[in-house]
């Protein structure tokens, strides 16, 4: 039974769970900072799924296409994250606002 489980499956399921967890976090976290972290984890979850799928048949070396896509994805996600951080910092500095709810 247990022996039937493949490495990639464990990671793929983890990816699914991480995805949902961070999606919930994105909605429920108040502070900009944590929302940004939630989007990062969201991205990581997606990448994890990609890579675990790439691992399916080749044991030596994973499918290069998802790997390349994930590298691209990481860069894109980091760029977006950096931009979001820059925005959050500016908002905080200009208005002292750190969540969408409070209106200073």
């Amino acid at each position, binding site marked *: 039974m247990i022996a039937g489980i493949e490495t990639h499956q464990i990671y793929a399921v983890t990816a699914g769970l991480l995805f949902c967890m961070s999606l919930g976090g994105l909605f429920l976290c108040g502070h900009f900072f944590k929302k940004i972290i939630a*989007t990062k984890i969201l*991205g990581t979850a*997606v990448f994890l799924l*990609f890579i675990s799928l790439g691992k399916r048949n080749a044991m030596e070396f994973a499918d290069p296409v998802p790997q390349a*896509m994930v590298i691209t994805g990481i860069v894109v996600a980091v*760029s977006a994250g950096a*931009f979001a951080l820059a*925005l959050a910092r500016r908002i905080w500095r*200009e208005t002292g606002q750190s969540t969408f709810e409070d209106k200073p």
Partner: protein
Amino acid sequence: MCFLLPARLRAPTGLAVAAVTAAAAVALAWQVAVDGMIRHNLGGWDAPLGIGLYADGLSCVFLVLTGVVGLLVSVYARSFFSLPEEQEGATKLFWPLWLILWGALNGMFLSADLFNLYVTIEVVGLAAVALTVLSGRPPALVAGLRYLLAAIAGSMAYLMGVALIYGSVSALDLQVVAQSIEGGSSLRVAFGLMIAGLLVKTAVFPLHFWLPSAHSSAQAPVSAILSALVVKASFYLILRLWVDVFDGSVTVAAGQALGALGAAAVLWGSYQALRQRRLKLMVAHSTVGQIGYMFLLFPLITLAHQGGADAPWLIHAWTGGIYQALAHGLAKAAMFLAVGVFVLAVGSDDREATVDLVGRLPMTTFALALAGVSLIGLPPSGGFVAKWMLLKATFTSGQWWWAPVILIGSFLTAGYVFMVLRQAFAPTKTPIQLKPVPRAMEVTALLLGAAAILIGFRAEEVLFLLDVEAPFQEAVEAEEGGGL
């Protein structure tokens, strides 16, 4: 062909590039209309390994829309950003950002690869947010961050769907995926995730929460771009996925669900627009409502598809939805530009402040009125053709329950459009000194408004273009190698 992604150019150069890009879009559309669809394999690699670019009727229609609106908005922007009032913040970055955005939009309309589409969505999203916060005013910043987070979440959901699809069919090219797709729960979930992610970006009710603040706090040309083009891009993608990729696996229930969201958006958006006191917020809410109309397309074509590809209302639904996108693109751009002129001249965004503009800014008022006519769907206008087709499709297909939504939406739209116009006719007791507005800004707004009306006179060409590899003809086998 349309990868003109220049950066760091100042206004005149930017304008020139805008003209070239628009011309390229039109040229491509012409070529597609004459020769049929075009496919170009980037890097010389075929699918599934390489990325393809692919132009058919649907993409060309959107390319040309983007070209026309883009060019006129560029002309407007050139005057707008040379005004002393609009110099704050990083406004000199408008040109590079806008041209990148435009390039990404074009890239998106042409891309035939799921992952590449993700990258273009992300570029579109980032550029759109950057444009939103251009002025650096705090409300714009907050709205921009909200937009950015929503956009990231949306594209991640989309990417998750892509991962699932890659997992099940090992391909990313739209055509290859479409051919090798079979049912199954993983595909359904993938599809759901992708559509949901894109719905966030298209701001369909109830996922529209980010739109009104973002679109209303941006500067006028930016608002026009966002409302007229950026939301259309993700709509295009939903449409593309729906009819080309998941063609066989979409269910009637899914179509009805999207239709219901659209209907709710029509009612809610229009109602909210009626309640706003600030002009730009009103126009932004109106976008939410008008986007809803486009989604009424889905239940109609889905049911049609179940009933066989030659269901008589198919052509109506299809044309209606696309026409709505076109007419709204033109009309909303005109409206935001016209409101931009108002705000500039009067110095206030209050709906009540637009008194007696009909005498003093006749051209702009006229532009606003033309755009309004098209939004309401009064004949003769693009909006009328759209609503006519949609309404007819609802009757013919027996889905009459969408009809009241279309009509009530029109009625509410008439309410807010005429509330502004009525105010514009009222004379002032104390004439406010209007600031002079560059003529080019007034003219471009009027041209866009007139275009929204004029496309109502001639649907034939658009239909012809749409007909090139229309998704309902099962003839996508022919692959023409990179004919650029």
